[in-house]
Each structure stands twice: as C-alpha cells, then as structure tokens.
C-alpha cells in the first residue's frame, strides 16, 4: 500500500543557516511515526514544513499522492493534515468546548453567508458540532472542564485540548507537537494511552518528541534527525541499537534512550 505521506529531499535554509537538509521518509497509513533528535536538530522545522506553516527551500511533501508543500496552512488542514501546537497556543477568550466547536469548521456544510444569517443548515451544523465536540472532549478526559475558559486550564488539560482541537478538524493524519513534554511518569502513561486510542480511530499519527521512553513505547517507527539531517530510520528496537543514534545522544543518560 502506498504511504499516506511522503517527504522527499526536504530542505529549509534561513539565510546562511541550513535548518533541515535533504530529509526523506515515508509515513504509512494508520501508523505512529515519531521524529526524534537532540535539541535544535531541526525537528520542529520539519514539523512546520509538513504542515505547511513554513515553505521549503527545496524538496516536497506529498499527502495521498498530492503535493502539499507550499500550499497555505489552512488548505493543507483541509486536505486532512492537521497539526497541534504547544499548549500556550489557545484561544484565550473561549471555553474549551467553544474552541473545539470552532475547530469543526472544516466539516461545515453551510456557507459564510449561512453562518451570518443563521440558516437552518448553519444551525444544524452548530448542533452537530456541539455534540461532536462533547464526544471528543469526553474521549480525551476533558468532559468535566469543557465550559472552562481555555486560559484557566492547567497544562495537562491544555495539551489534551490541543489534541481535541486537532481531532475536531477531521484529520487523516495528525501531527502532534511534543505531546509528552514536561509530564511525569503517570501522566505520560495516560497520554500514551490517549495517543493509542486516537490511532484506533483510524488516524495516522506523526509525533515530534523528546521523551525517549514514551517514544519507544508508542511508536511503530522512528526517524532520527540530527543537525537537520536524517541519521536513522526504523523500528524502536533498531533505533535503540543504532550506533549513529547513540553517538548523537552522547552525554545523555542511558535511561532516557530506553536502554
């Protein structure tokens, strides 16, 4: 089966600085692929390149066979490639539920004029989105806090809200930006379960992450980036044993690479 997402020779240069260089890999449908690498390796740049928040200097990203690199971010989202953000990116003035409802935008059948006049179609959309939002929030454990303002939510809930908002946009592939950052062992275990459950819904997941233990536990495959270049790709077992990877992480405690 053809991969759902292909990245070919992806390169990004900022003036004299090369953040990402000739990175290529495939993502299979319904798999969980993680991109890891030391700090400053270029992981988040790759992330932004794939979701088209940054345009590549060279190379291309294809989704379902179609080139998406260079398209505007909202068009890419419309095609089914949805990214999440770090937990500080929220709608400050909206409740969790409202944020998730707005995130359903891509599913609307009413037109903008319909939105304005509140036509029957728009109202039906609204009703459905409300129900769907409740379901998603429940699924991610945010049911009890859904009427809270996003700005009042603690970090853990905000992380889940980010995923909720991503799910509402009806993605085929969801890009998770450091979903386990700053979590303790318990929280990480719960988050790992949550990510697994999202995959069960039929989505493909692409993670950028630092937390090695979580990555090893949850990923089907891993891509390792260092200094903007792909240095390894494979199953967690293969990566764990890969010398280049160990060398890249030299100086990092053994436990964190899951040895």
């Amino acid at each position, binding site marked *: 089966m053809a991969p759902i997402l292909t990245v070919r020779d992806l390169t990004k240069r900022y003036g004299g600085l090369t953040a990402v260089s000739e990175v290529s890999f495939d993502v299979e449908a319904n798999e969980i692929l993680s991109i890891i690498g030391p700090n400053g390796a270029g992981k988040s740049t790759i992330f932004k390149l794939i*979701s088209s*928040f940054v345009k590549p200097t060279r190379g291309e990203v294809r989704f379902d066979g179609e080139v998406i690199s260079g398209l*505007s*971010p*909202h068009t890419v*989202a*419309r095609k089914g490639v*949805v*990214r*999440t*953000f770090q937990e500080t*990116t*929220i*709608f*400050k*003035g*909206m*409740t969790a*539920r*409202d944020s998730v*409802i*707005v*995130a359903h*935008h*891509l599913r609307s059948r*009413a037109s*903008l004029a319909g*939105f*304005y*006049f*509140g036509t029957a179609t*728009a109202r039906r*959309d*609204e009703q459905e989105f*409300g*129900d769907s939002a*409740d379901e998603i929030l429940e699924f991610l454990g945010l049911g009890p806090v859904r*009427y809270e303002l996003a700005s009042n939510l603690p970090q853990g809930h905000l992380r889940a809200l980010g995923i909720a*908002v*991503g799910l*509402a*946009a009806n993605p085929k592939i969801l890009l998770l930006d450091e979903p386990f950052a700053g979590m303790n062992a318990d929280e990480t275990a719960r988050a790992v379960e949550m990510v697994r459950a999202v995959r069960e819904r039929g989505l493909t997941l692409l993670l950028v992450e630092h937390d090695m233990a979580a990555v090893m536990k949850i990923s089907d495959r891993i891509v390792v980036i260092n200094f903007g270049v792909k240095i390894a790709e494979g199953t967690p077992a293969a990566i764990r044993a890969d010398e280049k990877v160990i060398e890249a992480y030299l100086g990092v405690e053994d436990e964190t690479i899951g040895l």
Partner: protein
Amino acid sequence: MKPAKNGLRVAAVAVFLLVVFVVVPAAIAASGRTDLYYTLSSVALLSIASGGVWLTFYIGRINIGQGAYSLVGGYVSAILVTTYGVSFWVSLPIAGLFCATASVLVGLPILRLRGVYFAMVTLILTEVARLAALALPITGGAKGITNIPPPGAIRIFGLTVVPAFDTFAERNAAFYFLSVTMMVLAFAALWRLVNSRLGRLFAALRQNEDLASSMGLNVPMLRVLAYAISSFLGGVGGAIFVAIAQSIYPSSFTVNDSVNFMLNCFLGGLSYVFGPMLGTLVLYFGWDLLFQAGEYQLLIYSGVMILLMLLLPNGLLSLRPPAIRPSLRMPAKRTS
C-alpha cells in the same frame, strides 16, 4: 439566549429607536435647535465609519486608514451624481462597493502585517487618498467638487417612497433621518455579525491566527472579508456626509479623521459593538460643547481624553453592569 436577557435586550433596542426617531426630533422641534440635526447626523455618519474601524479591531488589526475610504466613497458618489447624473440613492451602494473592492486589493497584501506595521501602513493610506484626490483629473484637484445637488426622490412603481430632499422644509431633518437609519442598519448588521458563527470565526482569528489556520479557517480570506465590510461602511458614511455638505475636497477626510475614528472605538470600548456609537457621540459632542472654551478647546478636549484613558482604559462601556454585558460565549447548556 435566556428569555429574561432577551426581553431586556428587546426593550433596550425599542427604547433606543424611540429616542432616536421620535424623542430627539420632537425635542429639537420644541427647542428650535435645528442646528442639532446637522450635529447628530454627523455623529451618526461618523459612528458608521467608526463601526467599520471597530470591526477591523475585532480581527486584531489597528486600522488608521478609514478616512481614505470615507474620502473615496464621498468622491465616488459626488462624481457619479455631478458628472454622470446618477441618482444619489444609486450612487450610495456603488460608493460602498467601490470602497470594498478597493480595500480587497489593498488588504490582500497589507493584512499580513500586524500591530504597528499595519497601523502605519493604513495611516499612509489616508494620505495616499488625499494626494490622489489632489492629483487625479477626475476629482477636480484642489478645488474639489461643489454644488452637489441634494438627494432626489425614491420612487417605486410611481409611488414616492422618499420625497426629494429639497422639498423638505427642514432639509437637515431629512438628512438626520437618513443618517440615523443608516446607523441603525449598520450597527444591527455588525451586532448580528459578531453574534453569528461568522463572528466567532473572526474572534478565533483575532485570538490566534496560527491556531485558526490549523483548523482550516481561511485566514487571509476572512481578514480581507472583515476589512472589506469595514471599508464599505467607511465609504457609505463618507458618501452621505458629502451629500449633506454638498461638496467634497481632498481635505474633507484627513489623517485626523482616521485617528478620530479609532479614538471613537477606543473610548466607547473595544469589546463592545456599540462602543463606537457611544464613543463618537461623546467625543463629537464633547468637542462641540467645548467650543465655548475658545482657544482652550483642544487642550481641554485632549486633556479629558487622556484622563478618560487613564481612568477607563477599557472604554466607557466597561462601566456596564456585568449582567447586560454582551457575551461572546456560545449558549452554555445543550438541550438534552
């Protein structure tokens, strides 16, 4: 919406309409202060333009260029009426649409800018409009366009729905009703906008453009849409203003006016749809009243303005009791 709140709102609107359409004209007739018709018409028209600026604030941009669209709208209407003999009533929507179209062309590149950069670009926009009015042959240059005839009658199927303005004994009264009707329509449309789902998209856009993009919101298009509506309102306000003044010059709307539209919004309260209306009323009347102060007029005016900004940095309407404050939230409970 809770029934009680709804009832209160309807009552407030009814009272407002009553005051504007019945009480004020009666008071003016009784006191003989027909000059107030002109003053209040100005307030109404300027508040329409300010309402447009408010909408650009709503999508998170500081718009100091509304004067440009008021000027352009005024000129479009003036040229259509004087050179091409078009009826004022037809020229009005054309002026608005012309401004909206122009703003799409201008907005597409500049709406990517934010904060001070966007503000500064819009500031020069007003100057560009003025300089263009001076330079272009069609606008008559520095001498402007004068002797613009007052609006004619609106006849539908032979019935005179609105009489020609020069048949009114008190022409300014006719303009008053026109201006105030437009103001009510404009703000009703704005109110509906921010309370609709489209308004929620704008609010999302203002709060975080990146997040909104990731949800599939066509951010560039939505921004331009808001800006076009804003400029439409500016153009319409300008066109009616020109009809009242019966003339237009390149200096009819300047950077000062653009700044004032912005100040009107700010003073009223940027979080409230009716902020610009209140702000325009207070600032315009304040300025007029201070005429008595002679050479100290500007000093006292700006001094009070600064004071108000210090005391009420979130605008006059931030004094409203919370119960009636318009909520930007969705209805909280779903029906089971």
